[in-house]
């Protein structure tokens, strides 16, 4: 693989004009990636689902080179209906459109040449890969006291032109004091065997609010990795919702540093898997100062041959007294061949804290099904009703009613 990747790297470099400094950084990251390769199960964080193996078995001839010179036409029919929104559209990893038409132009700034800042604590070889190959990289800044009026939807589209390709994306967001942003990541494509690697970095200043929704709904045969790094200052709030359902393989990683007092982080996730899918959510919440709060709720419904993993870690620094941390993961296994793995981890160095976690997994309760059937539902309906109720719990945690309804409609849940 290392020969191939070097050739692809040369091609990529030729296409763009990087400065000497940028090029050196890229080469550094490239070498780091070549050294460690795709993460495999020998690494603690990847022990449940082995990406290296998945890529080896599914994508024979992965190409890292991505021709960014051709523009792609936007298929407007695949845009989300019934919700006014701003958009950024990626097609095959290339930004085709940035549209903030609902917003005050002076209040949002978009930069496209920012110095690479990669001091993530939880670095891994995929972030190196991203650094080496991503092309352009945007930073979106929401100015002080400005609340975005309509949600921003980032579309991740791909068309039939790409196959067995690795796409690397990177976006940075900065929310200035007292600003807010609603962000939806929407994954929709029908392509096969591509590996997308997305890195976001969020910088939340005091009193800012971030709501991020990741929606992977339409079924496709791709492999995705997403890494969100969130830095939070005083009184800021972040809310992340993950619907993990469409792709063949999807791993969402969230690293959140609660650096300011009274900051809070919420992570809610749903796995709804069928036919051999393998998905994972891994969270690391670092409580670094006093009076911070985190809440995580992950629910899974697992069909045939599927595998889901949840690794949640709460770290409480010795300075972080009065921390409130909570973690709950629940799974319903629908088939003999489904598998659920959890590793809810607490690492605590302060004594005046309230931290707890819970994890439960099992099959649907036969008594509940019997009860519903005695009321006239058939077996299938009873099962569906129970599953919907189980998942609705997570969706009800969404604090934005417009987006909550959008997501409910998408997965066919009604009030």
């Amino acid at each position: 693989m290392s020969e191939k990747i070097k050739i692809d790297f040369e091609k990529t470099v030729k296409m763009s004009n990087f400065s000497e400094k940028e090029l050196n950084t890229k080469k550094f990251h490239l070498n780091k990636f070549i050294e460690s390769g795709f993460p495999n199960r020998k690494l603690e964080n990847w022990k449940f689902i082995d990406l290296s193996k998945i890529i080896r078995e599914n994508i024979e001839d992965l190409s890292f080179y991505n021709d960014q010179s051709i523009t792609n036409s936007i298929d407007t029919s695949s845009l989300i209906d019934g919700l006014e929104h701003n958009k950024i559209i990626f097609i095959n990893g290339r930004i085709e459109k940035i549209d903030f038409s609902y917003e005050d132009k002076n209040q949002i700034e978009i930069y496209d040449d920012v110095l690479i800042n990669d001091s993530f604590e939880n670095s891994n070889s995929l972030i190196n890969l991203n650094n080496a190959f991503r092309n352009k990289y945007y930073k979106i800044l929401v100015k002080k006291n400005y609340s975005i009026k309509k949600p921003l939807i980032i579309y991740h589209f791909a068309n039939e032109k790409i196959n067995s390709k690795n796409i690397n994306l990177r976006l940075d967001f900065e929310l200035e004091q007292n600003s807010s942003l609603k962000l939806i990541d929407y994954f929709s494509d029908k392509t096969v065997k591509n590996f997308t690697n997305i890195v976001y970095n969020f910088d939340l200043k005091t009193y800012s609010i971030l709501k991020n929704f990741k929606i992977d709904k339409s079924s496709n045969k791709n492999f995705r990795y997403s890494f969100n790094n969130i830095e939070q200052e005083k009184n800021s709030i972040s809310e992340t919702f993950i619907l993990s359902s469409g792709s063949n393989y999807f791993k969402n990683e969230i690293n959140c540093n609660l650096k300011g007092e009274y900051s809070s982080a919420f992570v809610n996730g749903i796995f709804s898997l069928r036919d051999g899918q393998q998905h994972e959510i891994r969270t690391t919440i670092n409580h670094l100062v006093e009076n911070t709060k985190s809440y995580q709720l992950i629910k899974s419904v697992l069909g045939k041959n599927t595998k889901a993993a949840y690794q949640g870690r709460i770290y409480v620094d010795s300075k972080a007294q009065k921390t409130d941390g909570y973690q709950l993961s629940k799974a319903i296994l629908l088939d003999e061949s489904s598998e659920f793995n959890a590793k809810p981890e607490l690492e605590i160095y302060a004594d005046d804290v309230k931290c707890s976690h819970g994890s439960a997994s099992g099959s649907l309760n036969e008594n509940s099904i019997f009860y519903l059937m005695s009321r006239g539902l058939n077996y299938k309906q009873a099962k569906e009703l129970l599953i919907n109720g189980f998942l609705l719990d997570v969706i009800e945690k969404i604090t934005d009613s417009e987006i909550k309804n959008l997501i409910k409609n998408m997965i066919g849940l009604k009030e």
Partner: protein
Amino acid sequence: MDTREKDIENLKDYKYGFSTDIENIRAPKGLNEDVIKFISNIKKEPKWMLEFRLKAYERFKLLKEPDWQKPKFPKIDYQDLYYYSAPKSMKDKPKSLDELDPKLLETYKKLGIPLQEQARLNGIAVDAVFDSVSVATTFKGELTKHGIIFCSMSEAIQKHPDLVKKYLGTVIPTTDHFFATLNSAVFTDGSFVYIPEGVRCPMELSTYFRINASETGQFERTLIIADKGSYVSYLEGCTAPMRDENQLHAANVELIALDDAEIKYSTVQNWYPGDENGKGGIYNFVTKRGLCKGKNSKISWTQVETGSAITWKYPSCILRGDNSIGEFYSIAITNNHQKADTGTKMIHLGKNTKSKIISKGISAGFSDMTYRGLVDINSKAKNSSNYTQCDSLLMGNRCGAHTVPYIKNKNFDSNIAHEATTSKISEEQLHYCQQRGLNAEEAVGLIVNGFCKEVLQQLPMEFAVEAQKLVGISLEGSVG
């Protein structure tokens, strides 16, 4: 001064910290084939046993010391240890207690374990292990009547080679992890228990481990076999003298329960924990594993871990037989600079298997405590269930408490529930107790004992009292 206070006064310092001046026979320093042959030779072992050891040693040479654990420790130089040390007077094993070196008897008396049978009123049979050898086993006559074999491992290898050969290494094979393999190569002594079919062992069996010599590693091996329909309750206690250096203790314990058998294994571990500044103390790296081989069998581990500089162990159950049950009850207390990384593994292979884990961790001072556990339900383990509860209590903000559970469910008929909390003693509770006339320390003692109650209840009577005291003592000076 009432008796409780006196007890605490007596125990405030590590009262087992004395050492006995006794002449020793040692193997040459270091680890190599010759040392293994020396051990095997001095114990007059049959050839198959030596082969077992050498096979393990071959494997050991290929292994690297694991480093994934939470408590880090300076590298151990395995060539700088004595792998065999025995009191000289044990060279020709005394036939009865009357012939035993009076110094040894005195040592055990000081430890509160009188070996003279007439002195025992509470009817516990004891096997005392001093450094590398078993020095005495009591109540042999009574046990033989029931057909129970309770003797030292060396004796079992001589007298019951068939049983040892059949079961040794079946739960912890010679190809296991680093410390277990090291033990397989150099183990010196330990206890052997065989309970015949249908026998309910009339008394508690107990082993008392004592490390005396310096620069010595203790590697004992215990094997307990409960044949069909039998029951045994086994206790284990440990102490060591205070020394500045760290000493290694790497034992292997194998339990095998056949159809309808039940084994209850309790440990009160009080190895020397090092001084206030974290100097010295025992490295307690023990492999304990039980196999529920037969149908309806049950293995229950109870541990009270208060000693050792570093405790690193995971008493585990492999639930192979259908309807078998595994239980794990643990209290782990760390104070000063002690560190612990402990928990359990429950591996469900058979149908309708059940497991229960109750773990209570208390950390104070500068200590660090980790609960690490695995619950693995195999795809064939239909209708299995697990319940896990692990609670941690923190005292002061210089200590740490961590929970790292691994939960794997591959069976849709099975249920796993896991709960964990971390908290400190609430001001309200303390206030309430103090209002009723308890001082701060007593109040903490009371609350901590309540916190641990679920586990303490599982211990046999005599141990429960001792453990309760230990819990109080281990936390001395951590309040306020």
